[in-house]
């Protein structure tokens, strides 16, 4: 798998700066007495090619951080630069574009579209990006080959095991050659064998220079990353380089 095969469209020029640049982000849910501070001022910079694991118990704010990083949610205060672009200033349509071109999602629940073949699932972000059908198919097949599921392209999600579904989801996340692959507990629903399969794919992605941010609460999953960030009560309490 050559990185060039999944290169982004030429129109998306990239800055040389960090992929993620988060400054003093706060997220507050509710108002008055029911107010909950999910994030209490998080600052974080992730360089290109890094492999970051974010750990924390439930309620630590890691999912909120993940949603903000993925442009699915907006922070209450603070600045967030994704690939050099200030996403807090973008409108709905531009955010959709950013999610499509610069971020690849891997969810805990796989979130594949039911009754749709693996290939069509992987093609979906390319379809929204306006890539032509033949090119789309070629790139989707490459992405599926990369996660080792080339021969399962025609299978629908319910014909695949959990691990295979998650690998399809990974293929879908990287098919647009995004600046950032965001994985939210990708192994949370998987057995040991499937976990290893999926993590092996992440290792290969990291080796080929992709930037990965992975959220987990399993220490052995976090250990495979290059950098570990621990989140407690909406604050970063630990940030160490593992490799």
């Amino acid at each position, binding site marked *: 798998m050559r990185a060039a095969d999944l290169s982004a469209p030429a129109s998306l020029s990239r800055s040389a700066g960090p992929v993620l640049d988060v400054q003093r982000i706060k997220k507050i849910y509710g108002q008055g007495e029911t107010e909950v501070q999910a994030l209490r001022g998080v600052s974080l910079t992730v360089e290109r090619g890094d492999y970051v694991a974010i750990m924390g118990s439930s309620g630590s704010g890691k999912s909120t951080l993940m949603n903000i990083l993925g442009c699915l949610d907006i922070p209450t205060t603070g600045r967030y630069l994704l690939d050099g672009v200030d996403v807090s200033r973008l409108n709905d349509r531009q955010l959709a574009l950013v999610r499509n071109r610069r971020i690849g999602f891997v969810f805990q629940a796989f979130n594949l*579209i039911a009754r749709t073949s693996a290939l069509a699932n992987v093609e979906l972000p390319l*379809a*929204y990006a306006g890539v032509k059908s033949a090119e789309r198919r070629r790139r989707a097949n490459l992405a599926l080959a990369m996660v080792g599921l080339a021969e399962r392209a025609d299978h629908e999600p319910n014909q695949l095991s959990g691990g295979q579904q998650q690998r399809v989801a990974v293929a879908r996340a990287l098919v647009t050659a995004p600046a950032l692959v965001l994985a939210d507990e990708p192994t949370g629903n998987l057995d040991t064998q499937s976990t290893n399969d999926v993590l092996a794919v992440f290792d290969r992605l990291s080796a080929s220079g992709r930037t990965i941010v992975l959220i987990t609460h399993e220490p052995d999953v976090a250990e495979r990353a290059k950098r570990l960030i621990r989140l407690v009560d909406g604050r970063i309490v630990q940030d160490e380089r593992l490799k």
Partner: protein
Amino acid sequence: MNIFETIRFALRAITANKLRSSLTVLGILIGVAAVILLVAVGNGSAQQVQQQIESLGTNTLTVTAGGGGGARSAAATTSTALTMDLVPALEDKAEAPHVRSVSPVVTGSQSATYEGTDHTIAQFVGTYPGWVAASNFKVDKGALFTDEDVAGSRKVVVIGKTVAEELFGTVDPLSKQITVAGKLFTVVGVLADKGGTGFSDPNDVAVAPVTAVQESLTGYGSLNQILVEATAPGDVSDAQGEVTAILNAKLNITGSSTTAYRIQNASQLLETRANTAETFTLLLGAVAGISLLVGGIGITNIMMVTVTERTREIGIRKALGAPKRTILTQFLVEATVLSLIGGLLGVAAAVIGSRFTIVSIKPVIVPSSVVLALGFSVAIGLFFGSYPASRAAGLRPIEALRYE
């Protein structure tokens, strides 16, 4: 993401839940089919009425004597009975240029026998030869009696199809003699079958020279009616004016309101009937339209369920970068495709249904009702689909993804 791609997504979503989609389609199908079919039934009955009236002849005027009491005050000096004297006056080309022919009519039901076979002829008409053409009859076999026959009071008769069948069966009636009220009439012709499915059989008729009928059957009293044929359907009202003027002069009528005689105009009758039929069609169409509306609400319902059920899928699509517009289009296309399929199947069902006779009416499909019903069903898809679609498109990805 082009529109074809979106349509493909929509079609895939529709086929993913076949039972539900087909039930939705059924609602629209019934609505569209009902609109087209009921309008066709209304139209069919209108055409039927029109044919019946046209078979009487649309360019004819029928003059009948007015009712007794009221007539006396308007024309106290003379009798209001129609007589043979009026006929030459009405035939005057100078005074009545729009009149083609005038036929005096004495009519009544008469029993006729032929070699022991007995049949009561509903309409035994004594008239001039011109009456046959003016009444839209044609001679099938033999020939019509002539003006000479009228002048000579010859007892000849042209019989209708029903009479021929009843009296003669398979025997050729030409030149045979039938007995009518004890008098012998020679059959010289048989009229062609005249269409029309009214209450009375138009073929149960016999036509003889007026002079012969008066001489042998009715006596030289007054005429039952005078049939006036105008030169063209468009000249009917002119002819009516001329006939009115001549009759007023002849019968010494001065008052404006005359009940001495009545002139019936077939085209007026036609117009009235056509209006009634139109109202009838409109009513049927409105009832059917309501069922189409109900079908449309069915679409909204099913699309709402679809949106709720697929909230998570919408969240995934949004996370993958689907713009609002694409989601909106997809759901709109889904609703429209459902209603369009329902509409097309409804048209097919209506076309098939119109081949059958419904409550003794042969439906005639109005092309504009097909276009209207189909267009309306698509509009319903767009209209009733737009609320669920905009709700789907407006979902925030984070909430949609959390939805279980």
